[in-house]
């Protein structure tokens, strides 16, 4: 009876992935061993690697399996930063304040501990990065930029970043670009090879690294990948047995890699038809909400967009004036529907959406944000159920939301 509309947090494990995981987990062998058991394991692992590589437009050798999106992002950002500063002084990291915390905290760490100079790109009203702003920024810091890192699609408001202009700007400036594609992967094309070819990128410039995570596409939690162009170098975060081109030591999790590949195969095979199915349900959900709550606003790129940024097909992101996002979440949860607000701190305290703040929205708008994300198990019935309860939920949340008033119960 519980309805799950938080697919961007994690999406249910696909049956294909579960079956692949069980089969691989039942097979003995360390992929680094020389004997036949090891070779069998290696075969399964490299099959998985090639599958993932195929979905990202790179070669198998360019895919590093890691523990998830956070590790991929840390390896790309810190690894590129250190490698780029090994031979020359390039302290500047260019990014935006609307990035995921894996990026924000990694660049802040580099700033505090390694002397990195973080330069923030403007975030436009719809949550995307402006390529002209990027070009100007790169020109202003010419010769001193270690890397650029931005989201391929925003995990909160769902804005899909047009990659071509960013690829062009970074290639022209001769700096490497890392794309955090954790939210984009499986929903929009993230083809590193194609993007590089389209701007004529040669060598370690332009888009060189892409971070993805398995559980966002129906694979298991605990595995992700960094696609790293063969010309680019990163300093490793983990040292040890020298696995994966010495860039990521540690015995590889074959069962998870195989399950990841199984999920990625289904997700990218279905991408166009599933995208259209989700977008149609999402549009119905958004229109239904706007009808029931006329003063609600939709954050991010418009539903229909001819040119400029589009949005992830399963993403609907609202601000409900007069409501606290966490009250809406609570009431929906009591009604059996799971959605999310911005982010919560370590102690579980709901915080205003940093993405909306970065987009220039005032704090009360950022505190009233609710994200509804559809995925491969979502049905029209789920949308109906959501639309049935939302008027009452917003009415109650509004009553509770006026919490700064003088307390009436005395």
């Amino acid at each position: 009876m519980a309805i799950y509309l938080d697919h961007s947090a994690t999406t249910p494990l696909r049956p294909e992935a579960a079956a692949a995981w069980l089969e691989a987990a039942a097979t003995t062998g360390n992929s680094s061993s020389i004997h036949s058991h090891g070779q069998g394991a290696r075969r399964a692992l490299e099959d998985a690697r090639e599958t993932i590589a195929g979905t990202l437009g790179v070669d198998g050798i360019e895919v590093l399996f890691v523990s998830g999106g956070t590790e991929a992002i840390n390896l790309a950002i810190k690894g590129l930063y250190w490698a780029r500063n090994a031979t020359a002084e390039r302290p500047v990291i260019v990014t935006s304040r609307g990035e995921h915390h894996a990026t924000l905290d990694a660049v802040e760490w580099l700033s505090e501990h390694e002397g990195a100079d973080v330069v923030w790109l403007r975030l436009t009203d719809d949550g995307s990065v402006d390529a002209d702003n990027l070009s100007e920024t790169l020109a202003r810091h010419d010769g001193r930029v270690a890397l650029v890192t931005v989201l391929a699609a925003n995990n909160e408001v769902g804005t899909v970043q047009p990659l071509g202009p960013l690829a062009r700007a970074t290639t022209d400036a001769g700096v490497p670009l890392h794309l955090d594609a954790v939210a984009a992967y499986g929903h929009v094309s993230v083809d590193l090879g194609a993007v590089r070819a389209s701007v004529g990128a040669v060598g370690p410039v332009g888009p060189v690294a892409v971070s993805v995570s398995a559980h966002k596409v129906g694979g298991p939690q605990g595995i992700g990948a960094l696609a790293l162009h063969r010309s680019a170098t990163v300093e490793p975060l983990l040292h040890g047995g020298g696995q994966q081109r010495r860039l990521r030591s540690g015995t590889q999790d074959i069962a998870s890699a195989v399950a990841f590949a199984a999920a990625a195969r289904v997700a990218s095979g279905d991408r166009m038809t599933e995208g259209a199915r989700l977008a149609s349900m999402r549009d119905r959900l958004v229109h239904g909400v706007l009808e029931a709550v006329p003063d609600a606003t939709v954050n991010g790129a418009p539903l229909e967009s001819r040119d400029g940024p589009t949005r992830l097909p399963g993403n609907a992101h609202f601000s409900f004036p007069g409501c606290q996002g966490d009250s809406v979440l609570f009431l929906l949860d009591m009604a059996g529907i799971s959605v999310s607000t911005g982010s919560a701190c370590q102690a579980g305290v709901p915080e205003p959406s940093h993405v909306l703040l970065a987009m220039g929205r005032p704090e009360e708008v950022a505190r009233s944000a609710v994200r509804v994300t559809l995925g491969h198990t979502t049905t029209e019935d789920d949308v109906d159920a959501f639309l049935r309860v939302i008027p009452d939920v917003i009415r109650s949340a509004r009553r509770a939301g006026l919490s700064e008033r003088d307390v009436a119960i005395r």
Partner: protein
Amino acid sequence: MKVLAAMSGGVDSAVAAARAVDAGHDVVGVHLALSRMPGTLRTGSRGCCTIEDSMDAQRAANLIGIPYYVWDFSERFKLDVVDDFVAEYSAGRTPNPCMRCNEKIKFAALLEKAIDLGFDAVCTGHYARLERSTGGALELHRASDEAKDQSYVLGVLTAEQLAHSMFPLGDTPSKAVVRAEAAARGLSVAAKPDSHDICFIPDGDTRGWLAERVGAENGAILDREGRVIGDHDGAHAFTVGQRRGLRLGVPADDGKPRFVLEVRPKTNEVVVGPKEALAIAQIAGHRFSWAGRPLDEPTHWFDCDVQIRAHADPVPARARVQDGRDGTEFVVVPTEPLDGVAPGQTAVVYLGTRVLGQFTIDRTVSAVPVGAASTAVGS
């Protein structure tokens, strides 16, 4: 009933929530985030604001099998409790922040939000009992275990707040029973230490904490006759009845120890004198409330007990509501003089085990007056 169980991460609120479930209620656990910058782990005694407490509360809710959420009251808490605490001390008064939190946060902001979101009651781990009088009115009473009784800090609750409150631990014979029950229920917080200190002062150093916020300036220590007999590093560090930390070089005429009798924040002066001079014959306050049904004729003197601190013994007294200099006030005359009464403290008035009401002390009358018989303190 749909019940919101306020869960601090401690053993009492966890067992209270479990008992509410056992009683057949539809229970949801809520942890109140009271600080924007919570500490990571407990250090020393337990506060209310650590990530560990939040995780303990969540774990307890999971084990009890109820939904769990964190609600952010940090802004309200800072305004209504922390800032108020600093302001009261700056004004030379001695506030009780836990009462303020009950009055403004737990049974006000939280209760109100809970009702707006569809709850009928808030359940806490306080040791106090709610009873129906023969006439059907709701009454607040001391807990069965007088050693653990917390009715004092609930004295600020009004009839309407009591109507939406639930204290499942009130009938428990002792805290040991609660701990044993927690262990039997498999709750990992069963052996967690009690909290004693002010939760937003995690290291327990109230003086140092206040000095940072109020600012410490040297000032004079006076005797009752107004003679300067010493100096201090800041009046905020002193409370009425305090003996330690005066560092007076000159002994008293009678050679007996001296105690803080009055703190004057405006002039940054501390007045000291003999222990006898601490004796207070009458206390009064304008800010008062009835815990439930008021007396029919409160302007007539009536017999009661008065308690002026969370862990003080109740003292027999006579009391009434009267027209004071600045309006209607609650006045209490104890049968024996009270020691160490500081303005800003809350006096809770009991009829037997029943909490009748409370007031914030803003006027005291010394039992052994020097000069004026009545001193309006803190003015």
